[in-house]
């Protein structure tokens, strides 16, 4: 006596395929979950002792990045300004603003402000600001529209695929060194009229790849094999 009709064969075969799909789908979900801001913290505005606005200071007042992040060109660490840097201006302006009280208190008492780190890499990754800045990687290439952030958040996922995307295709992202701190820099676009052309070494570039290749040569950017060697970032 037959318990299952013949049609159940088809269901059985289909269920095999379904299992493969389900497992694969689950894997895909897990991988995608790994890329969500829940894990990467991208776009998350973390609580800070003072609601510091990059938008106000950079776009509004036009302060250069290096006024506060002093060691960005010379050290692995860009540098977080000491309280003294804030006080330079804020002993003159907004001297009574309530939300600046932690700054004044820090200056008064000598206890540091404790900021919550926004752009955080795992401890086994050794990122160095100076080499990127000096080889023509713009601040906002990784930090995004920092000049439009009333509260600072991490722009990129900062996962390994993010780093490797650039390390494998540096020409797609490089800009002339004098444009590194320019928050309004726009890469050249293919335009026959030369709109938004970028000048480098006396030549106008209408194409990012051409520009990038010229910059790679000028700045002696090492080969893809070199800068994707494990020890570039891991020690």
């Amino acid at each position: 006596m037959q318990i299952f009709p013949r049609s159940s064969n088809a269901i059985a075969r289909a269920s095999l395929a379904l299992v493969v799909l389900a497992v694969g789908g689950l894997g895909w979900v897990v991988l995608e979950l790994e890329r969500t801001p829940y894990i990467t913290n991208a776009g998350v505005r973390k609580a800070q002792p003072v609601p510091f606005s990059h938008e106000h200071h950079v776009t509004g007042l036009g302060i250069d990045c290096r006024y506060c992040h002093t060691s960005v060109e010379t050290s692995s660490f860009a540098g977080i300004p000491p309280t003294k840097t804030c006080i330079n201006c804020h002993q003159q302006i907004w001297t009574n603003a309530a939300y600046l009280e932690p700054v004044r208190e820090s200056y008064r008492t000598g206890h540091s402000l404790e900021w919550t780190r926004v752009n955080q890499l795992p401890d086994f990754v050794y990122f160095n600001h100076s080499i990127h800045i000096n080889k023509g990687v713009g601040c906002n290439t990784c930090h995004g529209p920092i000049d439009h952030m009333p509260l600072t958040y991490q722009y990129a996922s900062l996962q390994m695929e993010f780093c490797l995307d650039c390390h494998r295709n540096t020409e797609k992202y490089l800009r002339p060194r004098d444009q590194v701190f320019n928050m309004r820099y726009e890469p050249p676009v293919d335009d026959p009229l030369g709109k938004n052309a970028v000048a480098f070494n006396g030549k106008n570039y209408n194409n990012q790849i051409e520009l990038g290749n010229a910059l790679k040569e000028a700045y002696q950017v090492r080969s893809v094999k070199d800068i994707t060697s494990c020890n570039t970032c891991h020690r």
Partner: protein
Amino acid sequence: MSIDEHKTKPAAAPAAAKSDVCPTKRKQLDLATVREQIEDTTGPEYWRSLEELAGSEEFQEMLHREFPKGASEWLDGFSRRGFLKTMGASLALAGLTGCTRMPNTEIVPYVRQPENVIPGRPKFYATSHTLGGYASPVLVESHLFRPTKIEGNPQHPASLGGTDVYAQASILDLYDPDRAQDITYLGDVRSWNAFISAISGPMMAEKSLAGGGVRILTQTVSSPTLAAQIRDYLAANPQAKWHVYEPINRDNVVEGAKLAFGEPVETRYDLSKADVIVSLDADFLYAGFPGSTRYTRDFAARRNPDANMNRLYVIESTPSSTGMKADHRLPIRAADILDFASNLHISLTAEIDSNTKFVSALVKDLQSHKGSSLIIAGDHQPPPVHALAHFINQELGNVGKTVFYSEPIDANPVNRAESLKALVDDMHAGKVDVLLILSGNPAYDAPAELELASLLKSPSVATKIYLGSHRNETAELCQWHVPEAHYLESWSDARAYDGTVSIIQPLIEPLYNGKSAHEIIAVLAGDSAATGHDLVQAYWQKQHTGADFDTFWRKSLHDGWVEGTTYAPKQAIAKGVGNENTPRSTTMMTITSPSRIAGTELNFRRDPSIYDGRFSNNGWLQELPKPLTKLTWDNPIMIGPAMAERLKLNFKDVAELEFNGKKVKGAVWIQAGHPDNSITVFLGYGRTRAGRVGSGAGFDVYPLRTSQAPWFADGAKLTATGETYNLASTQGYQTMETPDGSERPLVQERSLAEYKKEPNFAKKGEPRPDLTLYPGFDYSKEAYSWGMAIDLNSCVGCNNCIIACQSENNIAVVGREQTLKGRHMHWLRVDTYYNGPRENPKGFFQPLPCMQCENAPCELVCPVQATLHSSEGLNDMVYNRCVGTRYCSNNCPYKVRRFNFLLFQDWETPQFKLMRNPDVTVRSRGVMEKCTYCVQRISEARIDTETATVREGKEIKIGDDLQTACQQSCPANAIVFGNLNDPNSQVNKWKAQSRNYSLLGELNTRPRTTYLAEVRNPNPELEGS
């Protein structure tokens, strides 16, 4: 379920060994076999341990394993059920670890950032580490004012960039969580002000007695400031007394100088000008001998067989690394060295032909090198030997050429034993009211007959103040204990072996409010507000005659020494020659004559790792494999093989040592090359209050040591007890195996004459460079291709590289139990090989980091690509990818990979977080690790040169100034690292030498680290004797 042995043994293991999971149950070594092996010369030509020589099963076992038996097994009392439960849980959770969200962390900027501070870039400050009063000039790396690494001071003549193991490891002492953290009175916490007011009463009372009841006990003081402070205090209180004691002292040296010159002088040597060097029991190439760092540099520079190579004769009572470097080594008992020296003296002066071949050959050699030879006597040899050494040096015209005399660097060169005896007598007589002990640990290490500990316990002294870094045996017996500031926390000054003064400047505020000796003496003198900085600066202000003190001060701090303070050599004529003071010169003694001692000799020696016990709580030093024995965490009773055979003692046997009616028990270590009828024991172990690391390790031999016989004596008795104890020696671990049929030894060696005949001897058997099926990677297109060369001829086995590597690369300490299982983590090991008879073998040292093979066997077997080749030829290790299969280690013929079997790294103790090198990942459990040629230094140098290239618009390349940590610390300059693509790099010059060979090159692994073969320079007259 057995926790898998993933490797099958090449040869079927004996059935008995199968059940023998634990390495503790080893088969006993048959010493008779050892002897036969040597006689039959069937054993290996170069051997690492007597076990290997005997061809013991156990050794074979070790050879075929990546880790010693038991290293991979779970031995910690874990039931199978418990294991399955835990494993089940961890498997279930394994997938989730990837989803961990990173915790929020803080950035804490300065309030006012100091000038010139760039976060992320270390700064270096010059200061000095002192040991026995002698300063070792160092540069200290500081990350945002946290000292993290100690380097030698390349500009200081006493260092020239090299350091010693004690200076290197002293950084760990700074962060030792067991350091005393509070001022205490009878164990209760007190404030500094409470201390000052509490002792002001007694000090006032003493003032009226001209300090009659005040005694100051210090260690050797070479600090001009401290000496001046104490002298000033004594001048104001003429009845007070200054005593000096240190268990490892130079009483013999001082007395010997008095015997020869009538006054204490400091002797220093210039080894760069010495063609023939004779050491009379002097271990002058190992840390602890004053000036050893500089001597090693000069000695090693003269070991180049292509230039004028020196020749070293070592006559010694305890096998040492210096002895193993000798071209001719004569093991005799310590008491017989006096006879040897006087025999040598007579043969030289009276030109009587000595009746031993060794002496007559030596005499001829010395006579043909007048003015370019050198006799060095060891600190533990009695004064007459030192006097004889002075006479011989004078006789040979070496004074002013290779030997120099100067003022003693010791500010108070009194006889240590007598000085302490006088103090004890005064204490017995009730003359002492206030006893101030400035560091040291006399309750533990004073001569036994003084019974100082029980005297301190008794109420004979009203006020006892101890300044010390730990609550140790002495602190326990003193009412007041003031924590001593580490030298990286305090101001001071000290003299190097040549008299040059270094200002000791702090790198960090005292972590636990420690005080320095300067501040304590100032309190005594009534100036309790004075800081160390003020006191040291005020002293030098007085000394400085020029106008601009500020410039002088800043320059002295910057350079690491005070200009013009080096002692000028002074005239000293040995007066004793020929008169009745000349020790034993009238009697003709020879070493073949019956020895002067009838019984068994007992030798006390400083421990190569923990010195006199002061470094007991230093995990790096405890776990540092001592030269020759490769012992860690323990001290042995060391005897020679013949004596062991006679007493039927074997490795791991516990013996009872009886001397002067006192007994101690310890495990026996049979050392090839140890003189017969002689026992050596090492000081510094058996501490009861050292701290969590050092307490309880080894056995204490200070109870046997008296001031009559501080270094050696006759009449010791050794008896077997029948007990056994495992000594954690790494000598048999990570043994390499030569491939079947290969005749190439791991260390390559020839005599100078043979080398001249056949300079390419070491290259025999290396494969052709094109011996591969795969096209190689073209490195010539790269800017850099890294390589290293190690000169076996220069290496003196000082172990410095091991500690430097440990400090630079955040390498964990694993402890004795884990070391016994072969789980120690040192990335760089120094293998010792012997060759020749077990009574007097030649020794070889081979530092072994990762070879960075071009055809790396490890890379092929990693299932997750956690170890890969970089474009610059490095064999990268990616910790975050490693899943811990250990296949790589299994496949490594050099056995240089280390696995974190447990969570060895201390992730909790906050002090250690300050200490770590922020540029190197701190590894966790289950991760493989290994040497990476200090890739963090390469990255830093590359980034710096590349940014400079772009900024300045001209090509800048990394040159030879990029050094790995081991290379930088090496006092012998035995390691060279650099760019193989640069034809002018030092490493290429070394690799072009005929002595250059690849270790196990016949495996075609193409190691990037190669060795320069050893060439000895034996006296042709003694050759083959």
